[in-house]
């Protein structure tokens, strides 16, 4: 991905370099060639509509090419691959809190295996921050009150800067960390040290502790919708709209249940605003995602979502037929 960005950058350097050279050459040449000489008058030239059309159209076409290329790159940047591993990020003044789907928690550091698609699902506890890894050419603002997403695939092991790129107060320049890209075997080793259990399992505990299960049963009798397999699917709402149950939808249902109530259910769900932390919301989201996988029933998919995606890409590939 970074390579694609750099390719566009180099193209732009060449194009703008050429434009600069053209303009500067003309300027310098005209300045010298037509400098004032006594007795030589300037020639009054009104203009040339033809020339105007040429130098309007050609730049416009060039600009459209740049726009199109930039748009294609951007589209890829903002479309995470389907099977990317997920990392939940909570930004706060002035640190990054990260939690892998497998459960590892990190502060200001993100360990990832090389060659793996990684998707960050991010929110902020307070003000707007921005997740910026220059080496990967990615940046995404992290907002309070909703999730934003970014993704990358590291291609070379190493340690790379992670910066906050949206001014957030006193220690904005201290909100610096690292993305540590490891060989698969090393990552495996790092992963197995100090596991707290997958995020979705934590979510399951929160689900029980908060009493969600009393209404959201796994049969049709519950006062709330059955959440098995709901993630990622369209949901019909009471007000007639249909939305896709993505991370933001799940989050909104927990914090503001009346906003997008499901058709056929009473408006009785209480709000959990102020009663759950961002990390708990992330865990619940991960848990509900895992219910979809469980419903699908395929063992491979279950493994993929509730256990660490196998660090060895070859192994994973062979698992998923």
């Amino acid at each position, binding site marked *: 991905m970074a390579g694609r960005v750099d390719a566009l950058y180099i193209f732009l350097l060449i194009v703008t370099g050429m434009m600069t050279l053209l303009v500067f050459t003309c300027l310098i040449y005209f300045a010298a060639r037509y400098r004032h000489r006594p007795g030589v008058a300037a020639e009054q030239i009104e203009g040339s509509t033809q020339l105007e059309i040429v130098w309007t159209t050609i730049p416009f076409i060039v600009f459209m090419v740049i726009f199109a290329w930039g748009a294609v790159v951007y589209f890829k940047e903002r479309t995470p691959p389907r099977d990317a591993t997920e990392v939940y990020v909570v930004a706060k003044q002035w640190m990054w809190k990260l939690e892998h789907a497998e459960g590892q928690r990190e502060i200001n550091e993100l360990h990832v295996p090389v060659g793996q698609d990684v998707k960050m699902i991010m929110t902020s506890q307070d003000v707007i921050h921005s997740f910026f890894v220059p080496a990967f050419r990615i940046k995404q603002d992290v907002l309070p009150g909703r999730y934003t997403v970014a993704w990358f695939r590291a291609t070379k092991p190493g340690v790379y800067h992670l910066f906050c790129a949206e001014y957030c107060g006193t220690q904005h320049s201290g909100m610096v960390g690292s993305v540590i890209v490891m060989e698969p075997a090393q990552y495996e080793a790092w992963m197995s040290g100090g596991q707290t259990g997958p995020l979705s399992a934590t979510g399951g505990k929160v689900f029980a502790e908060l009493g969600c299960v009393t209404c959201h049963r796994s049969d049709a009798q519950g006062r709330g919708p059955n959440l098995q397999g709901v993630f990622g699917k369209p949901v019909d709402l009471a*007000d007639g709209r249909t939305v896709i149950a993505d991370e933001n939808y799940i989050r909104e249902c927990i914090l*503001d249940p*009346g*906003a997008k109530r499901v058709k056929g259910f*009473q*408006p009785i769900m209480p*709000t959990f605003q102020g009663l759950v932390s961002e990390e708990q919301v992330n865990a619940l989201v991960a848990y509900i995602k895992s219910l979809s996988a469980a419903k699908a029933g395929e063992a491979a998919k279950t493994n993929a979502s509730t256990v660490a995606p196998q660090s060895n890409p070859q192994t994973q590939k062979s698992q998923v037929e």
Partner: protein
Amino acid sequence: MHDSSIAAVQGTAHGEAHNPALLHHFAEAQQQRDASSLGMWLFLATEVMFFGGLFCAYLIYRLQYFGDFAAASKTLNVGLGATNTAVLICSSLTVVLAVWAAQTARRTLLITSLALTLILGFAFLGIKGIEYNDKFVEHHVPGASFSFDKEPIPGHPGEYANPRHAQIYFALYFVMTGLHALHMIVGIGIFLWLLVMAWKGRFTPEYNTPVEMGGLYWHFVDIIWIYLFPLLYLIDLHK
């Protein structure tokens, strides 16, 4: 079209009786009038942009939180709001009368119309004050003492509005009507001054630009209210 921007040749301008109201940098009275008029219209355009930001924010949140906004709107007194609308429309009539009176040298009508406009303006503010007081008493003023529990959403029996979203409604309600009221107060100030000038006999068929410009401003403030009233008071009123 007479291009008043190209001033008359010097001789003609000196030929007409020197209007004491003509400022020195203008060549003739018509140019001065046209400049004032264009200036006022441009100023009103800036006011449209000023209120426009608020209307934009209101529209976005209303689309997003429609039910909650409807519930909040229901707690406003439509009767008082409608009365205020009638008051302002009448005041626009009195303003038009004032302008005509100035243009046709009807001094009594001019003074009466200006005075009536002022009375209606004060009436508007008075009614607004009553409404604000009602909101204060009902704890619908955003801030620490805001409360909006168990308010039903019109048309959705059994459902209650989210207080946080209702607070946004009231926030916008107070900022929008508050800004409008501020503009009304300025308008009243302008018309007080016009009344004094009219009393002193300053306005003639040759020179009545201030009345006309004041009138334009007043009409604008009226139109803002014409938009505010249905947007704020009449959400799902039938439900």
